[in-house]
């Protein structure tokens, strides 16, 4: 009986020790930060460099409003130096290159989806921040996928977009498979815009399998008329390309342009919907890391999300009352599991397939 009690105690001590060791490994030298010292530190950093697509967060107009609201919320007097830069993959590549070269990052905040975050995490280029510990309105769920190296800022189901004036309703695609259906495809053969990135196809392979995705890609390329990056939906509205096989923000693009009277229609191409989970993270070599942290915190606050929704029709379903949370709840739309996606990139061969598909897309 006494021996059993001693053994029980030893197990208990071992558990405590393990827990202690685990917590020490899990958060190496993490100071107990709170919002106030962060704000104080951010006040010494006068400007925030942010490089992203030209229409990000409402572009020039949206960002100037964001700047004012951001400064007001934290009592700052900072400037957001926004620059229209390369697309997210190229930007991730630039962040990694600058980090490895030992220089300061071109951007203080990085915006990208899970494929890019996996790449950045693999190269150890992003700061790990105890977001939910520092910022009261950031939940663990928002930071858990990229292991606290980013915070989910908006979720965007991907899909097909087309110009309703050029693609008649009865011939319009309802899902990705329709794009290569010989009964429908003559409408857009030779005019189909394909994004130059392989990510969406890589993520589709989790539902379809690799071979089916490769076959689909080959057939799609045969119908291709050109390459459009995400964010270039205006070229579909203009009719330069009547249809785009996939865009990262299909629904947001449709909502945004339909309010301007543009004939843009979005269709989610798969079920569960293949989805971009856009996160904001901070490069390890950021020149203004404290201001960057506050900016990330602001973007997932209610105020930040409201402004994001106002300009971009984008939001995070993890923020209560957001447009995306409401949309998913009302339509019952199922989305791809972000954990599964992220792990596929990190451990499951996502990068290898990415490389193969990138070669296919280049031809």
């Amino acid at each position: 009986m006494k021996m059993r009690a001693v053994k029980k105690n030893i197990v208990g001590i071992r558990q405590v020790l393990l827990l202690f060791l685990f917590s020490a490994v899990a958060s190496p030298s993490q100071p107990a930060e709170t919002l106030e010292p962060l704000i104080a530190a951010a006040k010494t950093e006068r400007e925030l460099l942010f490089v992203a697509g030209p229409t990000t967060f409402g572009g020039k107009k949206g960002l100037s409003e964001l700047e004012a609201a951001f400064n007001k919320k934290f009592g700052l007097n900072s400037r957001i130096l926004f620059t229209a830069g390369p697309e997210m993959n190229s930007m991730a590549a630039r962040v990694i290159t600058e980090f490895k070269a030992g220089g300061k990052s071109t951007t203080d905040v990085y915006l990208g989806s899970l494929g890019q975050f996996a790449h950045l995490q693999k190269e150890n280029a992003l700061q790990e921040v105890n977001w939910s510990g520092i910022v009261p309105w950031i939940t663990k769920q928002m930071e858990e996928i990229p292991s606290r190296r980013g915070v989910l800022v908006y979720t965007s189901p991907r899909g097909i977009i087309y110009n309703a004036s050029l693609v008649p309703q009865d011939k319009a695609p309802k899902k990705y498979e329709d794009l290569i259906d010989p009964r429908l495809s003559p409408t857009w053969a030779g005019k189909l815009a394909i994004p130059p990135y392989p990510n969406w196809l890589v993520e589709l392979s989790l539902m379809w399998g690799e071979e089916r995705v490769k076959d689909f890609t080959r057939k799609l390329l045969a119908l291709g008329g050109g390459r459009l990056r995400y964010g270039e939906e205006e070229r579909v509205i203009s009719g330069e390309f009547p249809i785009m096989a996939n865009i990262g923000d299909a629904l947001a693009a449709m909502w945004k342009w339909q309010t301007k009277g543009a004939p843009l229609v979005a269709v989610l191409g798969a079920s569960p919907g293949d989805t971009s989970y856009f996160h904001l993270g901070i490069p390890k070599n950021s020149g203004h890391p404290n201001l960057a942290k506050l900016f990330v915190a602001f973007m997932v606050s209610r105020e930040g999300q409201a402004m994001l929704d106002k300009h971009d029709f984008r939001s995070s379903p993890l923020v209560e009352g957001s447009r995306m949370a409401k949309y998913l709840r009302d339509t019952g739309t199922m989305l791809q599991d972000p954990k599964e996606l992220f792990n596929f990139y990190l451990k499951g061969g996502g990068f290898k397939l990415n490389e193969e598909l990138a070669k296919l897309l280049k031809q």
Partner: protein
Amino acid sequence: MQTAADTLALKSRPWDIDASKLLLLGIAGIAALAIVGLLTMIVWMSLRTGVPGQLSSYNLNNYTLLLTDPYSYRVMMTTLGFAGVTIAVSVPLGFVFAWFIERTDLPHKALAMSLLGSGILFPTFLKAMGWVFLLHPRIGIINTFLMRLFDLKNAPLNIATLPGIGFVEGLTLTPLACVMIAAALRGMNPALVEAASIHGVSKFKTLLRVELPLIWPALISAVIWMLTVAIAAFDVPGVIGMANNIFTFSTAVYFMINPNEGLPRYGLSGAYGTIMVGVSLILMIPYFMALKQSHRYQIISGKSYQSRPMELGRWWILGWGLLGLYLLLAFVLPLLAMFWVSLLPYVQLPSRQALAAASFERYSAIAFDAALLRAAWNTLLLMAIVPTLIIVISAAISWIVTRSRMRGRVFLDAVAFLPHPVPHLLFALATAYLALLVSDIVPVYGTIFVLMAVYVVCWISFGTRVLNNSMIQVHRELEEAAQVGGVSTFRILWKVILPLIRPGVVYVWIWTSLSAYRELTMAVVLASPKSQVLSTYIWGQWHGGGLGDAAAIAVTMMAIMSPLVASFWIFARRQQHVATSVS
């Protein structure tokens, strides 16, 4: 009795170096080192893998990868096709305009030449943007008009093809071809033409059998020059080609360092670059051979001798008609198309409905765009500092090459010429690589200084060509007299030579300043948030899908910068360097 020259011959020996000579040597040496260093960097990059700062072994893997990838051959063939169309458009058009201006009695020739030269006011990438809105098979205004007029089912023209982008590039290079050919026509022996005329040979036959054979070296030079420019061109292939899956050398290299997946492939782009440097240098051999030949066909005439220009009669209408059509296609229509797009909430073809939606909303947003103002400020800064540095460096190099007896001056001249044939994108690439490599020691990466440095390096060749020609015309006696009087070399250069070659100096300053205003290729590789310039700002909007915003900013840029640029241009004309200033 010893003359001043004899005294100097005794005094100035190759090893006689005073402090001011040392200063000039230092300036020229740094510039030469920068040129050779950056070219070596391209070769060095090609032998490594990974990103700057990473350990790498040295091997030929990048070359193997390049030469075994079918994509590389596709890019090379596309580049050659693009260059071929560019030449096919620019050289014949340039010849026609040069012939009308130099060989006929076309009225208002000076105005014609000035209008052709005014192309410098309109950056190439803006013309390319305009042409997308004009001749795209689905959104092109001209195509739609033609389809409606002739009840066509398909668009008759397509700018989003290899011939299409070659056509736009050709249009933008026509003034340069015109200037190159005009110089040869001006120096041609008119007696042969007159002899043909006396013997009753028709005007057309004279053109084919007499005039064309006489200027063939100039035509070949123009063809080779256009070829090197087209190979290096980024603007038109970037704006029109990339979205339509047409990749030339420059855009392929751009994507290697801004990849859609994985890390930048600096090594592979270095391998591409090394091959292109080799090709460019090889192309210079026939170019110089043709230039050498051209002197055989020129005549030296007295002021009293003037060739009789061909009387055009009513055909002058054809000359001005062609010129008018060219100006319409090259400048007016692209600008109007951009203006139209800038007024709309999204790109639409002209219609009543679209007109009802037109507004100046985008323009009012521009007025409060702090980033745009910063880009404009950076552009102005570059327009002021780059030409000044080029004058200082070019003057030092040209003085050593043309006025000194230093050993190795011919080599220095050759090094200074090197950036001319080598695609400037490669210098930008090498500079980006170097800046990244040393970023933790010298934090210049992403600053305006990097842009400044690479612009200066690339345009030294132009500065030294003009200043060499100017300095060589200043008689040595003036300099020798000053030297005998004990004046230092630096003061001689400042007080004697530079005032005498002032028109050349002003011309170089203005030309390089305007080039800094137009430049996109190098800027797009090197610009960062703090070193944005107007061209990269517009490119960022366009490339990111903000077509209307890009058009609005472009039109605003033209409206604001044109008076400034035009006054530069008028000033340059007054310096009597019009003929060579169109490019």
